[in-house]
Structure formats: structure tokens, C-alpha cells
């Protein structure tokens, strides 16, 4: 009798596990289905934005493409899921996307309580304010009493509350779910101020009726390290995403670009040889081919290339490298060595 009961118990427990255990290794899943499912924004120029043909471009998109290049040797094997700020973590937790690359700020609570891990920082940002130049505001400290439009479910709405409270200023926050609605409401004059990550301000300004009539105030009120996010508990996939970004930064440091990577294959520099897979088996360590970094650089480019192509001074966003420059040039981008 007891035996029977134990076996009943076992099968019920097994059923429970079956419901629970849908989360296998992400890398195997990705290889089996043949593409990387990447969570991106619903359209933020320079970071993740679909063009009129539905092709996605941007800094965050390039990271997805680099992951696909590392896994498949083909940067095109990515499918994109546009997510609002509010939906993004649920989408990642539930396995709807394999990686979230969507201007997402690395914070302690997100890192520790959501069952997620941040796999690096591909853009160091900070929150800023945009106002109409006609208001003649020169500093954020003059904003007491203003109405402020922003996105719900972001660090932005928390920072703005902190900032106004710390400086003893009144404000009214109007929080929308979709970025386009924030822009529309600000454009219609519902709010005096639009606040989000500074990079986002430069990007969204391009969508306003008269971009020239708006200025970004000098104050930066927060630290917004933006980076890719993966599910916690899958170290292999975590490593792969982390090292994809590091490979791009290391490539910039070594001066390896998509243009010269083929020549670099012949170099005698041991650091470059390890990176490009002509020496060692570093690809195997993260579960992909040893030419993983070669494919990333060849097809997507190094960090400087994707930065300049998507958000740099030559683009409509006109963002200079600033803190996102290499550590050796006074910036914060620093990658551990491949060895």
C-alpha cells in the first residue's frame, strides 16, 4: 500500500516538474529553432528602430545581430519582438524572447528580484530633461510646478520623483505606456517637460513636429547603465551574451574592424589571435564555433563601428562618444581580456 502511495506521489511530483521545467538551456533552444528571438523597443531611433521595409537597425539591434553571428555565423538570424517598457521583463521571464536588448537600465532590484541578469553595459546613459525653448528655462532647477511627460514602468519616473523631492520642487507626472503617446502628448503641449534617458531625448526629439524648438537641459539626474538582459540561472547563455559585447569592445581596442578583420587573421599579435580564434578554443568555452568573434566583427563590426553607425556624430542623433569611449581614451567601456 505504502509503495503504491509513493508511486502515486512520485508521478504527481513529476507532473509538477513537467509544468515547471520548461526552461531548458537557451543556447540549445536557439540552435534548434535556428534564430535568436530578441526583445527590442517599439521604435527608438539609433537604438532599435524599424525602417520602412521592416528592417531593424540600431545599437541595441546590433548586439542581437552580433549574438546571432556568434551562434550561427550569420548576423541575419534574428527575429525581433518590439516591447514596451512595461512588457519587457515579463516577456523575458516567460521565455518569449531569448535576450532583451532594449535600452534597459541595470538596477539592483531588477538584477536581484526579477529572476534576470544583466550581461554588461553597451551604453552608459543618464536621465535628462527636454523643454520648449520658448519657455526660456535654462536649468532643471527652474522646473518647479511643471507637468512632466514620461513612460510608465521605467527608472525614469522614479528618478524624476526623487529629483523633484530632493530639490523641494512641485511637479505633475503624466505617465504613458507607449513612447509614441508620450511624444504625442508632449508635442501637443500637455506637458512642459519630456524626460527620459538623454540618448532617448535626442532620439525622440527627431519625432517632434519642430525638433528645433526644443532644447535638452544640461542637468543629468541619474546613472542609466543600459545593457542586455537574460534569464537568471542559465550561465552558458549569460556568458555568451556577455562575451559578445566584450568581443566588440576588445576588437575596438585592438583596432580590428569589419574592414580589416580578414587581414588581421594573419597577424602574429597573440591577443588578436585569441580573439579571432586562430589560437585557443575560446569559442568552445561558450558553446559556439571558435570563429565566433571573427563572425561578429566581420558582419556587425566592433563597438566603435556600431556606435558611429547608429548614434555617432555623423547620424541624426549626433551623440559623441563621451563616457562611452574606451577606458584607454578616458571613457568607461572596458572589456576583460580574452585569455
Amino acid at each position: 500500500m505504502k509503495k503504491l502511495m509513493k508511486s502515486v506521489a512520485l508521478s504527481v511530483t513529476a507532473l509538477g516538474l513537467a509544468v515547471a521545467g520548461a526552461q531548458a538551456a537557451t543556447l540549445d533552444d536557439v540552435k534548434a529553432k535556428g534564430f535568436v528571438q530578441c526583445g527590442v523597443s517599439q521604435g527608438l531611433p539609433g537604438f532599435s528602430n524599424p525602417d520602412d521595409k521592416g528592417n531593424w537597425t540600431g545599437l541595441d539591434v546590433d548586439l542581437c545581430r552580433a549574438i546571432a553571428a556568434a551562434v550561427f555565423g550569420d548576423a541575419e538570424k534574428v527575429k525581433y519582438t518590439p516591447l514596451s517598457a512595461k512588457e519587457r521583463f515579463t516577456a523575458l521571464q516567460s521565455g518569449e524572447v531569448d535576450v532583451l536588448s532594449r535600452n534597459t537600465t541595470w538596477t539592483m532590484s531588477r538584477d536581484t528580484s526579477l529572476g534576470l541578469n544583466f550581461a554588461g553595459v553597451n551604453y552608459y546613459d543618464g536621465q535628462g530633461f527636454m523643454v520648449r525653448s520658448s519657455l526660456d528655462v535654462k536649468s532643471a532647477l527652474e522646473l518647479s510646478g511643471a507637468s512632466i511627460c514620461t513612460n510608465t514602468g521605467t527608472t525614469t519616473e522614479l528618478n524624476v520623483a526623487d529629483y523633484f523631492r530632493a530639490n523641494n520642487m512641485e511637479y505633475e507626472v503624466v505617465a504613458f505606456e507607449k513612447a509614441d503617446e508620450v511624444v504625442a502628448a508632449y508635442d501637443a503641449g500637455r506637458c512642459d517637460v519630456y524626460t527620459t534617458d538623454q540618448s532617448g531625448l535626442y532620439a525622440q526629439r527627431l519625432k517632434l513636429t519642430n525638433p528645433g524648438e526644443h532644447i535638452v537641459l544640461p542637468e543629468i539626474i541619474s546613472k542609466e547603465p543600459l545593457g542586455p538582459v537574460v534569464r537568471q540561472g542559465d550561465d552558458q547563455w549569460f556568458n555568451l551574451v556577455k562575451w559578445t559585447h566584450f568581443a566588440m569592445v576588445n576588437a575596438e581596442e585592438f583596432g580590428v574592424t569589419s574592414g580589416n578583420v580578414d587581414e588581421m587573421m594573419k597577424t602574429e599579435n597573440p591577443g588578436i589571435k585569441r580573439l579571432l580564434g586562430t589560437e585557443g578554443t575560446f569559442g568552445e568555452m561558450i558553446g559556439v564555433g571558435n570563429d565566433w568573434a571573427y563572425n561578429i566583427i566581420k558582419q556587425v563590426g566592433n563597438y566603435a563601428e556600431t556606435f558611429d553607425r547608429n548614434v555617432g556624430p555623423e547620424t541624426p542623433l549626433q551623440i559623441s562618444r563621451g563616457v562611452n569611449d574606451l577606458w584607454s581614451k578616458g571613457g568607461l567601456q572596458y572589456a576583460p581580456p580574452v585569455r
Partner: protein
Amino acid sequence: MAVQQPIADGDVSAQSDPRFLLVTVFAALAILAFYLSAVYNYFEGDYGAPFASIGGIAGGVVSIDIAKIFNFIALVLLLFPIAIIFRTKAWFGFEGKQSYAGNVFNDSGLRNFFFEMLVMAFLGFVFWFFVGNTVRNLAAANISSGFGFLDRAAGFGINFSPFIQYSETSTYLTVYMVGLQNTLIVAVLGIILATLLGFIVGVARLSTNFVISQVAYAFVEVMRNIPLLLWIFIWYFSVLRLLPSKQDPLDLGPLGLLNVAGYYAPRPVFGDGAGWIGIAFIVGIIATIFVARWAKARQMATGEQFPVFWTALGLIIGLPILALLASGIPLTFEMPTASRFGPRGGARVIPEFLGLLVALVTYTAAYIAEIVRAGILAVNKGQTEAANALGLRSGPTLRLVVIPQAMRVIIPPMTNQYLNLTKNSSLAVAIAYPELVSVFAGTALNQTGQAVEILLMTMLTYLTISLLTAWFMNWFNARMALVER
């Protein structure tokens, strides 16, 4: 076919009823099962388990093993005697209404009861299984769970909370209350306004005046063919586009200011002695009730009518005004004043609220109008003709003869519309009106990441609101139905 003859009242006592034995055995078995599980757990070294499992089920800390299954079955079986106690009254004819003779196994009441309990037990088990599973899955994925977050400070701002004090340091529980408050505000106001507008349009639709009826018809058709979300956007963004900017608002004189950031009404500020105004208002209402009763009684007795409406108006509005004058006008109005970022002060209504309210009211009113029209058409034409023959004019005919009878048809589907309006108010999330779904199931969910708990709370809240509304409407319906007879 065995014919079961109901026996006359009180002939068979409960004791001689063969089902009594069956029910007793059932109850005894249930208690035995619970006892057995206690013994089982005792030998497994877990003395408190039978009782702990009650707490475990409540707290969601559940893992499936054999002892707990035992406990669970025992708990479900325990429901039987409880349910039986409620049922026996009807079965055994304790009130002398019903008695029994025949085969126990042919008793459909008992049989149905058995299967009902079986289904209940199954549903309970499924629920219990999924709760336990969810808790374990969340723990396995390192996602925090539990309701501890409700005491944590929210840290974000909310721009509309007329009755509840809210600041960034308030807790998530307060966020929930503010969301609920804002949902109830649009729902209640929306229901009242939609009913009024719906009745007007519904009656207008049946008007003999061609223009009026066609305008009403066009209104209904347009409303019913626009998706509500689009309609809300149209209202919100066109309101934003049409209203003047914050810097030069539309001056409505004593009525305040109107601009793209909302309507700024003058805010009444009461001074000393203002309490008398409130007292006068209450006295006015009470007096009105007495006058209405007296007038009705007199009309019943003598047939003489009394202008109740105008008296009521005089009492409810006139008395407070008298009190206001008598106490030396202790009332001032704080007018909104201009500032760099638009008007400050006054009583402000945000445009998100206005846009949502107008959209919901007009949309729902179209459906209510159709219900009203159907209700009126359902009243036999002979009723109108009879009223006319008695010399009633068309106004009183509608008010006193047709509508009261139409109400019987109108009220039940109206409940649906009220529930729809309440639930549709959650579309506000698109235009930043901070109601429950937007601020709690949206912002709070996102900041805490505790989707399961927050969605559960939100669902239960909507369920409660809906059940209360339905319950109230049923009560109202029953009352109207009685009054008719």
C-alpha cells in the same frame, strides 16, 4: 416505474428517513479521513501537518506529497458535513414542507449534491495544484513573490488623487487604493451620466420629430461602430489639440480656466460658520423626504397634486443659500492664477479624466439608448392609448405609465452596460489616467515585478466590483418588479 408519492406534511420524521443514515455515514467517513491523515502524519513524524496544510493552502506554500494529498482530500470531505447541514433543512422537511418516500439511490437531490461536491473537490484540487506550482516555479526562477511589497514605498508620482493623500513616499498599498479610487470615480460618474444621456437619446430616438429622431439614430450608429479605444484616443488627443495652450488659457470668468492641461475650477474655501450650510443642506433633504411622503398620501386620499419637485428644489438649494447669507457669507473662492508653467491653484480636473469620461459616457450611452428604446417599444401600445383616453398628456404618460413598465425590460440588460463601462475604464492606461490597471497592474507591477500577486489582486477587485454592481441591480430589479404589481 416506481411512483414516488410525496407524503403529506410532517408525516415522516427525519429519523425514519432512509437518507439520514447515508448522510451520517458520509459525515463520519469524512471525519475519519481527516483523522487517518493525522495518524499517517504522526507516523511520518509530522504531527502538525493536518492543520499546517490548512495554513499551507492558504499561504500558498505547497508541495505535493502523499500526506498533503491525504490532508487535502480530508479537508474537501469535511466540506460535506458542512454542506449537508445547509441542505438537510430542505431535504428532511424540517420546516414541514417536504417529506420523503422512495429509493435513496433514485433521489435526484442527493445524487446532484454528490456530484456537485465531486466537481468542487476537483476544482479545489486544480486550484491548489496551480498555486503550489506557481510558487515553486517563481522560487526556482529567482523571482520574488509574496505580498510584502505592499508595505514598501512606491517612489513614483501620481497626478490625480482627489480623496486619498498620496506622495512618492506612500506604499504600494496606497497606490492600490488610489488606483481603485480613480477607477470608482470614472465608473460611478460614468454610469450616472451614461444613464441620463442614454435615456434622453433612447426617448429621442422614438420622437415623432424627424430631425430629433434622426440625430439620435446617427449618434447611436456612429458610437456603436467605433472601437472604444480609438474613440478614447480621438477624444483625448483632439481635446489636447483643440484646447488653448497652458500659457494662454481660455478664461471662463467666474467659472475658472480651461487649457490643454485641464479644467481649473474655482476652489471653494469655507470659513467659520460654514458648517451651517452643510446642516441646512441635510435639513433640506430630510424635509424634502417628508414633503414627498405627505404629498403622496394627500394625492392618494384627495387626488390633489402638490408641486413636489419645485418644493424640493427650494428646500435643497434654497435653505443652504439662506444659511450662507445668514452666517455672513463665510465662503470664498480660490481662483487659479497664472504662472510660468500655466495656471496654479483652484480645483483642477486633468484632461485625461475628462477625455476618458466623455468617451466612456457617449459610447455606453448609445447602447443604453437602444435598451431604453427596446424597453419602451415593449410596452403595449394600448397602455399609451388608455392613458391618453384618460386625459394624460404625453409627458406624464411617458413618465407615469410607459417608463415604469418599460423598466422591467430595461434594468436587466442595463447591468451589463454598467459592468462594461466599469471594465472599459481600464482602457485609460492608453491615455495616462491613473486608474487601477494603469497605476497598479501597470506601474506597480513593473516596478516590483510581482506579476502574479498584483494581477490576482486586480482581478479579484474587478470581480468584487462586478458582483456588487450585479447584486445591486438585481435588488433594484426585484424592487421595481414588486412595485409594478
